[in-house]
Every structure is written in structure tokens, then in C-alpha cells.
């Protein structure tokens, strides 16, 4: 890659290569749906974890180009179909980066809706404008052709992969790692000893910029570490 060839010579190397994977998901329609907030709460409690994952983590990727504050499907539905801005605001504030398990994420969403309905019981059975359909994500993880043993190869891999791969390694990784981190930061920190670059990556705000911009910021941080 020509840009890589122009970069300075510092290229930290690791004995453990970084394999760039990507993931693709297919939407499965489940039996849960909600035509009121009471039904929505039941759905949240009983839907499969793949549904919680779809409507929070995965929907971020489906709407990755939106800068104006798209957070998750639950919040969007609370606002546009239920016309409940305070509930929507609380659901919007759920940050997937604070969760390393889908079960905890579900509990947080359930808690928010329960608290809202405790304070606003009349809203529970009010018919909403649009039905909420709980879908689930069936995921297939796919290896790409990119493997990095050095920081320079890592930068090349980052440039070559799609935003789906960024989503897989940077956002969804915490569910696999069970850590408040991501695959990129883990490799930079543990295998290359680049703790500061790892920390900087972990501070990128995925909610206020597009996934393409996230990718560019990651590349910039890695290129700076090369200098």
C-alpha cells in the first residue's frame, strides 16, 4: 500500500499476529412484538439475547452513518411510535460500551422501562403508533485476507477492511473479551506494548461520529504510533 511505504520506519512487531475478521448478520424475525409499552416491557424481559444484541449493538452498525444521535432501536421507537421523550432520553443514554454482557444490557433496559411505567402507569397500555417487532441477529464471523504482525501491517489492514470489521473488532469485541476494551486496543497494549495508543483508541466516541470516521480516527492514532 503506497501510503504505508511513505511512513517512517518504526514498526513494532508482535509474535502473535492480529487476524482481521469481519462479521455479517442476518435478521431473524422472532415471535415477540409490542403494540404498547406494557407489551414492550414483556418483550424486553423474555426475548432472546440475540434480540437485545440486534437492537443495541447491531443497529449501531445499520445506522452507523448517522451523526445526530441515533443510539438504539428501543429509544427510537419510544420517541417516534410512543411519543415518550423522557423514556426515549433514558434509553438513548444506554451506552453499549459500558456493558460486557448482553444480560446486563437487557437488565438496564428493563430497569429504565420499569421505572418509567412506575411513574407513568397510564402509558403502559396506551396503543402506540407503530408495532415494535423484536428481531434477532444471526451472526457469521468471516476471516479476511488481512493479517498483521507489525504496526505497519496493522495500519494496512485497518485501511483495507470494511466498517463491518471495525464494528466486529472495535465495538462488539467487549462481549467476547468481557472487558471494557476492544480487540485493537488489546493487541496494541498486550502484544506491542503501545499502551498510550491503546488507551487513545478506547476513548473514541462511537456515538457522535460515523463508523467511517471511527475507522479514520483509529488509523490516525495507529499512524501516529508509527512515527
Amino acid at each position, binding site marked *: 500500500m503506497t501510503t504505508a511505504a511513505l511512513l517512517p520506519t518504526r514498526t513494532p512487531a508482535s509474535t502473535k499476529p492480529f487476524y482481521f475478521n469481519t462479521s455479517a448478520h*442476518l435478521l431473524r424475525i422472532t415471535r415477540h412484538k409490542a403494540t404498547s409499552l406494557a407489551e414492550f416491557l414483556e418483550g424486553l424481559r423474555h426475548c432472546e439475547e440475540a434480540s437485545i444484541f440486534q437492537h443495541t449493538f447491531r443497529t449501531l452498525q445499520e445506522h452507523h*452513518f448517522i451523526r445526530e444521535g441515533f443510539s438504539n432501536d428501543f429509544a427510537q421507537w419510544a420517541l417516534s411510535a410512543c411519543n415518550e421523550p423522557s423514556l426515549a432520553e433514558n434509553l438513548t443514554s444506554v451506552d453499549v460500551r459500558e456493558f460486557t454482557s448482553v444480560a446486563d444490557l437487557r437488565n438496564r433496559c428493563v430497569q429504565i422501562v420499569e421505572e418509567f411505567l412506575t411513574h407513568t402507569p397510564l402509558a403502559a397500555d396506551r396503543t402506540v403508533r407503530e408495532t415494535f417487532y423484536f428481531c434477532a441477529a444471526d451472526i457469521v464471523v468471516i476471516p479476511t485476507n488481512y493479517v498483521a504482525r507489525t504496526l505497519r501491517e496493522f495500519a494496512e489492514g485497518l485501511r483495507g477492511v*470494511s466498517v463491518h470489521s471495525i464494528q466486529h473488532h472495535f465495538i462488539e469485541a467487549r462481549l467476547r473479551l468481557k472487558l471494557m476494551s476492544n480487540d485493537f486496543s488489546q493487541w496494541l497494549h498486550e502484544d506491542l506494548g503501545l499502551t498510550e495508543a491503546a488507551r487513545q483508541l478506547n476513548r473514541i466516541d462511537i456515538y457522535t461520529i460515523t463508523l467511517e470516521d471511527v475507522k479514520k480516527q483509529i488509523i490516525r492514532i495507529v499512524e501516529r504510533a508509527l512515527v
Partner: protein
Amino acid sequence: MEPVESQTRSETASGSLPSDSAPVAAPAEPARVERRRKPRTWETPPAPVPPPHLDDYKKIVGAAEIDELRFLARDLKGKSLQMINSTAVGGGVAEMLNQMVPLLNEVEVNTRWAVITGGNDFFEVTKAFHNALQGGEYKLTQHARDIFLMNNEQNRQRIQFEEEFIVIHDPQPAPLVPARKESRQQWIWRCHIDLSNPNPEVWGFLRPFVEKYDAAIFSSQSFARQLPISQYLFYPCIDPLSEKNKEIDESFVAQTCEEFGIDRSRPIVTQVSRFDRAKDPVGVIQAFKQARKYVDCQLVMAGGGATDDPEGAAVLREVREVAGADRDIIVLDLPPWCALEINALQRASTVIVQKSVKEGFGLTVTEALWKGKPTIAGAVGGIPNQIVHKLTGMLVHSVDGCAYQIRYLLTHPEFARQLGQNGREHVKENFLMTTNVRRWLLLLRILLTRASHPPTV
């Protein structure tokens, strides 16, 4: 379908169009074109273009996306798939298969396409079933059942079912499923129609066949039924390389507007759709008239379906009546092969409206979003999947709501521009041909995995 004489202005809308196509005298206002010329392809449809290759999409979705499709297909190399539907030409399913089959073959999933045959009586029954499954009134007779099953049995004996995956499109060939081999062959039912409120008798008759499949696919969550098999969501898609959606020269856009008498110096609000009450064309005109009290604009109502459909002709008459002598309402009844002209009209528009009151998926919304246009659409059918309110477009529920959003978008161009940009990205991520190639490859991989690791009971 016969091409329809042109009408661009109020006098044609009120029915005073001459029956021949002779040139008309120059307009009273020289700046406005009084009559459009004949459409570019007047007598016959243009020759079909050869199907594209995956690499042709790289310039649109990026090389990384296309690479991913190839990575995804690696484990499917050499697998075989047969698509079966009821028509080789005409209609969205045939159009989609014409594009999809070569693309799947290109990634070495050996795909072939077969079409069922039948007499007129069979297709009369299937048309009635089609309408009944979408909520129409119908009395299912034993005779209709017999015709339906007998024709399917004949097709079962005629068609070879040797592939590892068999995909049956829509209800017409659904009863072919008993042809399943005892091996690990997987059968998938792809339902393109809205089953949210089916005629219970017809659905009750078809349901036992559907339950024999390994998986079903629907175009919207709301179209699905409760079934004991896995149900997947495949959104319909558009081809960004087609005549309707490809990039076109600005000069062609300008020429098209000139021919149709559209003033590009003023805002243009457009609805493109068949003249059908489900698209509420009269409501669009009412909304436009309300909006125009506060903001200068023109309305283009471009559609077809009025020549081969008596109801379409009646709706077109109503539209012309409501438009009356308004010089800013331009009603165009176009033949179905005017895809390039539709493309140009959409690109010339300031705002695009699709104020449907009943809708399937609403591919005209997808087309509008793909062209980066701020779009206002009825919150029905598959439209909310495409329009995230205030983020990728505006959802409306009434004429008044539509009028307000027209005014708002025309007076807030920066917000409108951002909506259009988000809408285009939404289509790029979720509703393009390449996304559906990815969905098919994913489904095959998921079914293969499931077959090799069946769930334990």
C-alpha cells in the same frame, strides 16, 4: 402497455388533450414548455442491459464490501441452489432474479433458475390467492384447490430438484415442497407479499405447505406470520447500476425537465408511483396546495398504470380533476420503460414524497433516498424500515402532516440536505443489490451450519 400521450399542464389535466401527437402551438409564457415531446423510447421498451458483475459495484460500495462477499462465499464454493418462481419476465421478482442469479454464480454458488408453468385457469387461481393473501375477500372453492394442486403436481414431475438448496418464491409454487429429497436438501420459502392480514381460508390452505420448509423469508417484520420455522428478514433492494438508479448526466436531467415543462429555477416536489389509491395521489395534491400557501413550489406527479388498469385510469382522472387548472401541478402518465426519465425527475426534485396509505416495501422510497433526496413518506408497510423519522427522512400520517413537512424541508435546506445524505447512506448499507447478495450467502451458511449441528431437543 401503450405509451400515453403527454400532458404537462392544467389544460391537459382537465381533459382537453388532443388525440394526435402533433406539435402544439407555442405557450403563452415563453419560459415554460407547454407540451413535452415524445418519451425517448416511444414505441417499444429498450433492449435489456446485460447483468452486472460484482466488481462493477466496487465504485459504489467500495472494494472492502465486495471483498467481504467473496470471503463470505468461500465456504459455499461449489454448493448448488435452484430458484423457482412463476414468471420469467415482468414483475419485481423476475427482475431481482435476473440480477441475483448471475451474481451468485460469480461467487461460485452454482445457481439456476426455473419457472413453473400452468394454464390460464392456474394463473387465475394464483392471482386470486395473491389478492386474498394480501387481505382481499375470496371464497376458496374445492375447484380452485384442485387446479392449484394439480398444476403444482405437474410442475413437481417436470422440474429436477437436485440442488442442495431450493428456494421457492411466493405462494404459487409453494406446494412443490413434497419434492424434497431425503438427503440434507434445504428448502426455503421466499414470500414477497404482505401476509400480515391474509384471508384465513387461503392461508389455512397454504400454511401446511409452508410449515414443511426449513426457513421462510419475508420483506418486512410486519408481513410475517407465526410459524414453527425460522423466519428471516430480507429487505427488497434496488440495483444502483440500473437505468432507474444509475448516475446520469446533469444535461439529461435538464433536458427531461425542459421536455416535461418543469421549471428548475423553483423548488420541485415529486411523487413517483402508479396511479393507485393506496399511494394517495389526491392527498399529495392537497398537501402540496396547503404547503404552497407559504412556500413557492411545483408538484410533479409521475406514474403509470393508467392504461392497462381500469382503476388506475379512474384514479388518474380524479388526480386531474383535483389538480384542476393549476399550472404548477404537472401530471405525467409514463410508460413502464421510462426508467431513465424517472431517474432524471427524481434527481431534479427538491423534495420527494411517497404519501402511501398502504404499501408493500415502497421501493420508490428507496430510489428517492438513494438519490440523496429529502423524502417524506407515509408510515405504512415497509416504509418505516427505510425512513427513521427525522434521521433518514420524515414519516407522516396525514395530509396536514405531509403539508407541514413539505414546508419545513423547503425552508430548512441544510436539514433537508443532511436527511438526504443520511438516507443515501442508509440505502447503501441496507437496501442495495450487494446487500442482498450478502443476505443470500449468509442464509446459506447459517442453514448449512444448522444442518451440521442440529439443535438438540
